[in-house]
């Protein structure tokens, strides 16, 4: 169906997206403000970016965050994919209900509770708080998100593909490696991206389980923001927002082209 925007829909979309994007746009604009006062325009300047890159504490925090995100999202992807496979394919086993409960609970649980619970565990087992504890905590809560993304792909996965692989001589592991995994790869990758982003963004859980020597970027941002607006944070936000925007736009362009290609192929197949 080819419709055009009615005035009502056009208005609500314009206002809605203005509400969603105006704060971000203002944030970005004021990152180039020469004035220290965030609300007064003092001319164009990139000095806050310079100051940001000169601030060792920020760079250290960024490095810790990146390290944590890379390791925890990768571990979460492996564990989450396994968990999704177990949920969708392993059939019945003792404690399956508890297992699926443990997968879904962290998705709806307040982060303060998750953070508190995991901190108390680390204290109970005598694990020193630091980068390792952040990685463990992040892996645990992001693997559940990965598992949800991957299992929603496995639901629509034609089970006879796996059976065909077994029928043609694959062991179950070989069938997973050479048939299932390549086909669900896009879901696994988006699961990894989700885990990576969640880990990068996480403040509350890190706040609980981090030690004094392991400050992540969101923790650093949070402590400076509590003191009020800070143009350096605007600069940092602008950088992060740019990265995300470029990533999301690229991904959507790639998927758009893939869909178009797929359609062209299917039409060509009908003609032959």
């Amino acid at each position, binding site marked *: 169906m080819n419709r055009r925007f009615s005035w009502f829909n056009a208005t609500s979309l314009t206002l809605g997206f203005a509400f969603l994007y105006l704060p971000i746009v*203002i944030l970005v604009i004021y990152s180039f403000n020469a004035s220290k006062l965030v609300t007064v325009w003092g001319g164009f300047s990139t000095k806050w970016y310079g100051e940001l890159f000169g601030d060792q504490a920020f760079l250290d925090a960024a490095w810790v965050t990146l390290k944590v995100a890379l390791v925890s999202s990768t571990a979460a992807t492996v564990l989450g994919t396994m968990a999704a496979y177990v949920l969708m394919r392993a059939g019945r086993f003792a*404690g399956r209900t508890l297992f699926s409960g443990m997968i879904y609970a962290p998705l709806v649980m307040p982060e303060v509770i998750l953070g508190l*619970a995991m901190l108390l*565990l680390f204290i109970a087992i005598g694990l020193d708080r630091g980068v390792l504890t952040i990685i463990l905590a992040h892996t645990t809560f992001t693997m559940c998100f990965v598992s949800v993304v991957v299992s929603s792909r496995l639901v629509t996965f034609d089970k006879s593909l796996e059976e065909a692989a077994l029928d043609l001589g694959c062991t179950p592991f070989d069938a997973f490696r050479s048939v299932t995994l390549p086909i669900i790869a896009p879901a696994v990758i988006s699961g990894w991206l989700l885990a990576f982003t969640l880990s990068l963004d996480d403040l509350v859980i890190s706040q609980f389980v981090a030690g004094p020597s392991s400050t992540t970027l969101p923790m650093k941002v949070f402590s400076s923001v509590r003191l009020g607006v800070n143009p350096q944070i605007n600069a940092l936000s602008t950088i992060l927002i740019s990265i995300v925007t470029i990533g999301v736009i690229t991904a959507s362009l790639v998927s*758009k082209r893939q869909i178009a290609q797929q359609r062209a192929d299917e039409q060509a197949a009908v003609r032959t």
Partner: protein
Amino acid sequence: MFNFRRLFLILTPYLWLGFFFLIPFVIVLKISLSDYAVSIPPYTPLLDLSAGWEGIKSFVGELDFENFTFLAGDPLYYTAYLSSLKIAAISTFFTLLVAYPIAYGMAQAPDEWRPTLMMLVILPFWTSFLIRVYSWIGILSNEGFLNQTLMWLGIIDTPLVILNTSTAVYIGIVYAYLPFMILPIYSALEKLDGSLIEAAEDLGCSKMSAFWLVTLPLSRPGIIAGCFLVFIPALGEFVIPSILGGTTTLMIGKTLYEEFFSNRDWPVASAVAVVLLLILIIPIILFQRNEQKQREAGQ
């Protein structure tokens, strides 16, 4: 097909979650039944396994619900719970009001526009939550963007105090959780068969009554899902009240955090967490039931 590979496959994520997710909750529960003490760790009793069965018995004997009666008796806590519920409910309502027209507009948009609009809704989701909340400080503060604009327009003479009030928290929640409300409503509206509206109009409905009698009821599952997706996390929200709410806004997530880090009262903090979980179970079960119903209807 019961073999070691299968066992390994099941046990790895199972044990991981059991150790890093389930056991922590048992610990929280246990500490919530303990008493505060000025020691390391700051609570008693401690489980002394070297004393054997006697140790376990005396340990269990010393656990009690004292912290929970304390929570019920101290207005600080129950007002925090009540104000969290109030803030979560009101902001969920406003999120719905803002989100519905956007979702409706998206569902009515020309086909070639939809992927772009969809991307515009999802984009903020990938952007740091903290940054999105932070961006409102510059807008809502006394000399902020909003007040400057309103004063320039001559609508007000003196700046409105919004930052560090509950209003700022409402705005923050609506803003931060808007995509969670738009997406389920959009997916319900998108599935709606356009000929239903035409049929309603053919049978004598005006455009307005066709919306009330057909579109709105059929998008109800999306509305319910969206409301839970906003209400549940908003209830335990910590970042938004900390950044925008100032000291006057009471929310239970913040109370828990302060109880733990400022007062170092672990037993009470754990009890606060247990009660919050108990409160959350009801909406979570309702949400699950709604999803289940949707899945069954879809088949």
